[in-house]
């Protein structure tokens, strides 16, 4: 069921008049809307609504993300405060979550070093949380490096087999490579966000106010986060300085060989997401053209990157 998000519908949901409704362009796995709720006591509350897509490419749901967000927010990680989750798709067409809007922008704003150091501290804190104590609804807590890798590869391989539309020898090759080259050691089993970059940070005056988009968060190898964040970090601060701050605040040793495995894994996961989005487009469940665009164009680019990286790892 396709339901448009309008100020009228949102007013019914938040039980207050709604103004300044704005759909954020971009984002292929969820829809995100900003708006203000005007309460009867005269206060204005800036909110964010994040809604699942039908046949969403990431194969994740805001219902799970809400639980993670609540747990990390309570644990003191800078993340938006989640306010409500609605798993019933009949309310707004798809499950959605509401969270409080955080100020700031995805821009270091002339203070790159401060932001880089703050990111090091943030990741050190995240990677120091005890996943078993967090009550974040994680489906699995792997025991070692091999299990970290196997859980991911098995999960995404299953999705790929269910969604693939055409032969893709590069992905067969890639899944085989991932299984044959799993990391053998992990410095710590941690909560990982897996999409840490400036695009998911809200920054103000050199401080990170929020890390956004927790849909892929899970328990795994911190090298996954560090390897992904590194190109973003190196635009802000030298990598050794970042790592020194990360270690000073309790972060586990960075394992570069693991990070390289996760780099290939991430491209494979994203290629599977593209496949799943395209499958939703082809089936008619989600006819938004962005799914076709990503499912064709980005998918091909990722496949090219995957086979090139596997070639480099030999």
């Amino acid at each position: 069921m396709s339901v448009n998000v309008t100020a009228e519908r949102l007013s019914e949901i938040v039980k207050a008049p709604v103004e300044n409704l704005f759909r954020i362009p971009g984002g292929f796995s969820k829809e995100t809307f900003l708006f203000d709720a005007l309460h009867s006591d005269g206060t204005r509350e800036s909110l964010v609504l994040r809604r699942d897509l039908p046949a969403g490419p990431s194969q994740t749901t805001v219902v799970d993300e809400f639980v993670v967000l609540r747990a990390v927010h309570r644990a003191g990680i800078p993340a938006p405060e989640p306010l409500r989750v609605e798993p019933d798709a009949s309310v707004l067409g798809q499950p959605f979550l509401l969270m409080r809007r955080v100020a700031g922008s995805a821009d270091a704003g002339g203070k790159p070093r401060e932001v880089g150091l703050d990111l090091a501290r943030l990741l050190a804190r995240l990677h120091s949380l005890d996943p078993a104590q967090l009550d974040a609804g994680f489906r699995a807590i792997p025991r070692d490096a091999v299990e970290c890798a196997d859980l991911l590869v098995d999960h995404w391989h299953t999705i790929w087999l269910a969604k693939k539309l055409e032969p893709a020898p590069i992905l067969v090759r890639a899944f085989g490579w991932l299984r044959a080259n799993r990391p053998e050691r992990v410095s710590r089993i941690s909560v990982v966000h897996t999409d840490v970059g400036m695009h998911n940070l809200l920054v103000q005056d050199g401080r990170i106010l929020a890390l956004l988009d927790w849909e892929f968060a899970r328990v795994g190898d911190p090298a996954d986060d560090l390897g992904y964040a590194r190109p973003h970090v190196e635009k802000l601060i030298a990598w050794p300085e970042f790592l020194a701050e990360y270690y000073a605040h309790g972060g586990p040793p960075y394992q570069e060989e693991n990070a390289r495995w996760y780099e290939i894994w991430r491209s494979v996961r994203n290629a599977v997401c593209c496949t799943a989005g395209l499958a939703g487009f082809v089936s008619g469940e989600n006819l938004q053209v962005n799914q076709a665009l990503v499912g064709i164009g980005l998918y091909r680019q990722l496949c090219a990157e995957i086979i090139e990286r596997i070639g480099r790892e030999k």
Partner: protein
Amino acid sequence: MRPTNSELLRGIVHTLNTVIMPDLRSPWPQMVTLMTSRLLEHLIAREEGLAPTLRARIPELRALLANVAPAAAALEAKTHAGDADASLDALVREDDALHVALEILLASEASRAPALLARIDALLAAEARAEPPLYERLVKA
């Protein structure tokens, strides 16, 4: 038939870019219109570039699969690569069948041989490098 599909699509892209886009004020419709325009450009690229791409790579796939037992069945059907009258559908079907054979080969014991795996990797990398003219407009959106 004139105009050709490509000629018609170019006109539609032109209209989207020069009439519709400049009048849109909201970022989401702007982005969706841009993506629609890029998808139409991709259709033009497919119309003009897919058949030559397939004609070039089908013989290379066949050559790789020719001497490997798990993939040999895929080679029984006659090839369309050199047939100037072959339809795009026929070329796509043949290309897909050869790629399925390659998937089977990759899942087999035979692909453990380093020399064969290196050939497969080289072929897949070459295929990936040859494709951007078909897809680059989508990536740039």
